[in-house]
């Protein structure tokens, strides 16, 4: 029970929109830190986030966030902040009005609401733009004001649906640094993003989802280990890639070879990584070939994602 109070728990959750599947039989237990949801369009990432926050109701199963449910709105939404991907706002408001209106609904004084709004604007580095009407904001600014609204009340759990969309590289780096800082403070962060390279670096774990089903979860390395029986890809930089490919391909465990586009390396896919390295070492020791680098190329989220889901990682 105490463990549940520290985790986000999905217990056999299914959501159907009429006859359309949203997510099916999802069971997850998410620990503090940064968790990234990865999956293509329509895979169910946003549905999971909306289920977590009560914006949609599960057809089956139950969800609790640190032991709380959205039915207990008062305690739940003081604990949870959700930056949705809906790029829309109440009409006619400035950034300040938007933040202060949101905070006033918590029942705090106007002075406290202003202080928290000011702090949130500083954290997302929105600056003087907060005094302007949101209708005139760029996409990046709208993303920032949404993020400010989600973190303004200092939640313990922050759910971010595509938080890097629309941000320029500098703003992305700043946002990622903010996420890392929030995570260091002990906050739960659940992030969905299609910019896997960036999120991958700060994630403690990934949840891979497709077609409404969770296909893998855990740390990037754990997930990779979980799919150890599937072929793994290695890039070998060398001076005789074609020759190396033919030698390696004669071994049973090598299932695919592809030359690098610059002609100075070869991608090899193997079903037995231990045997693969043993053979490679013997070739390197006994033959006239110069091997410059050996790099596993599918040990990041995008590669694992391609592995398991069979699609490009640029999902949203």
């Amino acid at each position, binding site marked *: 029970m105490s463990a549940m109070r520290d985790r986000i728990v999905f217990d056999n959750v299914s959501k159907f929109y009429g006859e359309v599947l949203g997510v099916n039989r999802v069971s997850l237990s998410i620990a503090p830190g940064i968790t990234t949801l990865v999956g293509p369009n329509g895979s169910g990432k946003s549905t999971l986030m909306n289920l977590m926050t009560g914006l949609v109701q599960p057809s089956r199963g139950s969800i609790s966030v640190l032991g709380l449910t959205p039915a207990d709105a008062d305690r*739940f939404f003081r604990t949870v902040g959700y930056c949705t991907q809906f790029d829309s706002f109440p009409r006619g408001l400035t950034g300040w009005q938007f933040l202060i209106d949101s905070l006033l*609904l918590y029942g705090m004084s106007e002075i406290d609401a202003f202080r928290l709004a000011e702090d949130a604007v500083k954290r997302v580095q929105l600056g003087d733009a907060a005094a302007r009407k949101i209708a005139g904001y760029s996409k990046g600014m709208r993303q920032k004001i949404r993020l400010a609204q989600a973190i303004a009340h200092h939640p313990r759990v922050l759910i971010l649906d595509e938080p890097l969309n629309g941000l320029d590289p500098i703003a992305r780096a700043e946002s990622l640094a903010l996420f890392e800082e929030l995570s260091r403070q002990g906050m739960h962060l659940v992030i969905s993003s299609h910019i896997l390279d960036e999120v991958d670096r700060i994630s403690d774990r990934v949840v891979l989802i497709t077609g409404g089903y969770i296909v893998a979860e855990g740390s990037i390395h754990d997930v990779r280990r979980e799919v150890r029986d599937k072929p793994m890809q290695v890039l070998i930089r060398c001076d005789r890639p074609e020759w190396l490919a033919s030698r390696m391909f004669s071994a049973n465990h090598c299932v695919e070879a592809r030359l690098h586009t610059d002609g100075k390396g070869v991608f090899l896919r193997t079903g037995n990584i231990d045997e693969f390295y043993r053979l490679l070492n013997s070739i390197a020791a006994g033959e006239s070939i110069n091997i410059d680098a050996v790099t596993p190329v599918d040990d990041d989220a995008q590669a694992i994602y391609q592995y398991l889901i069979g699609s490009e990682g640029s999902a949203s």
Partner: protein
Amino acid sequence: MNQRFSALANSILRQPWSLWWLQARRAVRIEVRRNLLSLRAWWVYFLAFVPTGIILIHLLFETHPAFALSEDTSVLAGVVQFYYVRLGIFFGCLGIFSRLIRGEMVERSLHFYLLAPMRREILLLAKYAAGAFSAVALFSTAVAANFMLIYLAFGPAGRDYVFQGPGLGQLEGYLTVTVLGCLGYGAVFLLLSMVFRNPTPAALLVWGWEAINPIMPSILQKISVASYLRHLMPITVPGAGIFALLTVQTEPVPTWVAIFGVLLLTAIVLAYSCVRMRRFEIRYTTE
């Protein structure tokens, strides 16, 4: 039994009523500022004040001999009965109350409210209160202005009618009808906007229901806002021709029953709306 009752009473008393009250007041303030005091509300102002404009033109360009006072009193009764109850308040409330939930769904901004640490029932009732405040303020002002302009035109005779005669009592009746009309139709349209993506066809059905209600059995007549309001009209104008469609003829009931009837109908509809609100889902893609 006693223990169970006292446990229930304790549980009710332990609820954070002061926080709920504060949140509700703030939500009302935000809603009124965003909706009533915005340019988007122009057409509701137009609906409310069209008769006022026409009466003002009559006041400025026509003479009003004292013998026409009773005729103008009937005209005012007709304006309230035919225009405000059946058209102005009806469609004004449709616009105001549909916007509160469905309008925010269309604009994709409702989730900000649903992510606030506020019970959904409180949110719904606050939105309803904001809509009711807006509708009552607008239509009551318009009806009172119409009343004032009608009798202002008659000078001392009009003043006598208002202050020495039945005028103020009639104004009270018109304002009661206006307030109850806004509360009743407001609750109905708030619910319709939660049930239907486009509440207008359903609202037209309600409008038709109100029109044919007089020929319904007595029990069904009670499920109608206009049928109660008719009993509260200080002066009843019989409908003729097309206006017969806009006139509701129902079995006579005492004033207190009519008032209680509208309030009860409103309470039942709001209670059901609260139940629906608890399970309400944000599904903008289907809007």
